[in-house]
């Protein structure tokens, strides 16, 4: 059962992620002036810690831009974006990188594994930034690969894996540092139905068992249905919010 809060901005009492008048403008130089593209107009948004959120909306509605801002890999033009105690809008690039290493795992639609590294080495990458020793890094990477059911593919290169397996390795890489926030951009977009289901089950598990907050951009209504909160964006603003009633 779904509860509808159109344009609601204060759903959670203890919002962990808070966006206030979040605006992103891209400026494109043209021959006869500058064209402004505004994927996010003045977005207000709150997401509770531990929530599983799907972001939906037509192309150009600002979903991916919002995900980039949440990941700290793009900078807002104005407004505020708080995640916990951090206002990402005012953080410098290096501080964002350090924050990202601890707090965020990102899953891309096109997997984005490093092709010259094995599955194990790809998963181990985020741990290279931690103070963990080699043995602990190996244990954690193998544990993450076991979680996604690919411990036996640790030595395989991405080119030796199927699309579904590559995405599961990408998930293992995203969770290996045990970040509290998992961002997924169309994680099932390039997968067949069976692989997509496996990936969604994994996300369910991570949300329920590991209490990870998940924000997932998707066009797939079946994928969106797995989320507890569904946010619909239109023209850079939050158009509708739906919450599954337990």
């Amino acid at each position, binding site marked *: 059962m779904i509860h509808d809060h159109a344009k609601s901005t204060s759903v959670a009492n203890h919002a962990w992620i808070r966006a206030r008048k979040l605006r992103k403008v891209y400026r494109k130089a043209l021959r006869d002036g500058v064209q402004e593209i505004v994927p996010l107009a003045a977005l207000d948004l709150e997401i509770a810690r531990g929530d599983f959120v799907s972001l939906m909306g037509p192309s150009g509605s600002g979903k*991916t*831009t919002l*995900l*980039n801002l949440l*990941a700290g*890999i*793009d900078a807002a033009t104005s407004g505020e974006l708080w995640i916990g105690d951090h206002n990402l809008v005012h953080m410098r*690039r*290096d501080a964002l*990188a*350090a924050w*990202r*290493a*601890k707090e965020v795992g*990102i899953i*891309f639609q*096109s997997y*984005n*594994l*490093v*092709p*010259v*590294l094995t599955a194990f*080495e790809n998963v181990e*990458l*985020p741990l*290279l*930034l931690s*103070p963990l020793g080699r043995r602990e890094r190996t244990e954690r990477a193998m544990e993450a690969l076991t979680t996604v059911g690919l411990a036996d593919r640790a030595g395989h290169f991405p080119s030796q894996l199927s699309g579904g397996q590559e995405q599961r390795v990408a998930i293992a*890489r995203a969770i290996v540092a045990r970040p509290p926030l998992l961002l997924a*951009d169309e994680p099932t977009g390039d997968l067949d139905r069976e692989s997509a289901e496996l990936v969604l089950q994994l996300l369910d598990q991570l949300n329920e068992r590991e209490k990870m907050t998940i924000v997932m951009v998707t066009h797939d209504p079946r994928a969106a249905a797995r989320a507890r909160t569904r946010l619909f964006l239109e023209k850079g603003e939050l158009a509708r919010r739906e919450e599954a009633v337990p």
Partner: protein
Amino acid sequence: MIDLNVLVRSGALALRMLMRSRVRLVLTVLGIATASFLFTAERSVRDGVREATQASAQETRLIVYRANRFCPFTSRVPEAYVDEIARIDGVASVAPMQIAVSNCRASLDVIVFRGVRAIDAERILAKRLRIKEGSLADFLARGDGALVGSALAERRNLRVGDRFNSAGVTVTVAGIADADGPQDRNACYVQLPFLQSALGGIIGGEVTQFEVEVSDPSELQAVAAAIDRRFANDRAPTSTRSERAFAARAAEDIVTISRFAGLLAYGALAAIFALVANAIVLSLEGRAREFAILQSIGFRAPSIAWMILVEAAGLSLCGALIGAGTAQLVLTFGHFGLGAEGVLVEFRPSLAGLTTSMLASLLVGVAAGFVPAILASRRGIAEGTRLA
């Protein structure tokens, strides 16, 4: 603050990623190795020229040549001058010497025969040469005996007892000797009367030059001037120079070649710069996503720049190791030398040359990676991951 642990790990990661891109690695390293080979070889030519021709304040040896003659075949001075030179103040010893060369012009394989009197062999050669095989006694006992310099023996694969012919002179190797100077290492000493006779001259008649040792290095020029003054109005006026100044004049062509080769060395360094920069820039175009992925994971911009610099250093160092190492081996076992008018310039490998080549390649390689490293570290992450 940059974490040292992260620097070490990201450096190791960069090298691992480089090793896995084999085609790029092999092609770039081969190019750098070729350039580094040229650079190292040129260094050895330059070092050889310097060793043979650079003046030193400690020099005590003068070469007395026939004035206005530049080739051993045309320099003829009476052997009888020896006593008059010996009487000049400041002269410690004097040795008449007949020179015969297999090729007067600049050549890579020249044999220089040096005819010395038996008395001078005992007095001078015993000091200058370290006999490794055979003996001075054997040399003196045989009329056609030859004391062969170690570099020449290795180049021609000569052993004691071998007979060989060059420039119409046939000798038997009576000893093989090492020496500090390149001229001695590459000479073939024979007895003066034997060489004079072999060349169709009169024994005790004329010689090519005198080697004069002065007692005080500071008197070198004064003694040279005194010798030339003494014979200025004689039938065979002389021109006296320090041994290295003499070598520099005789090997003028080689010095010119060496200067030109110096330009090639800079060209080799430029090639290394271009190769590394090209390899890095091209690979960055294809690997923008890789670096964006690393940044999305939390790698900071300085770490990305560091990884690219490590990669550039790895490529250039690997190429330099192969190129400079091969050049050292070729020069060590090839025993190359360039002779002109009886003066020999050796191309000798040295640890300093190897180190200079490696350092030059490394510095140039890292410099070539610097701008691409900065550019790559500043690229947008979102566009790199195609997240946008």
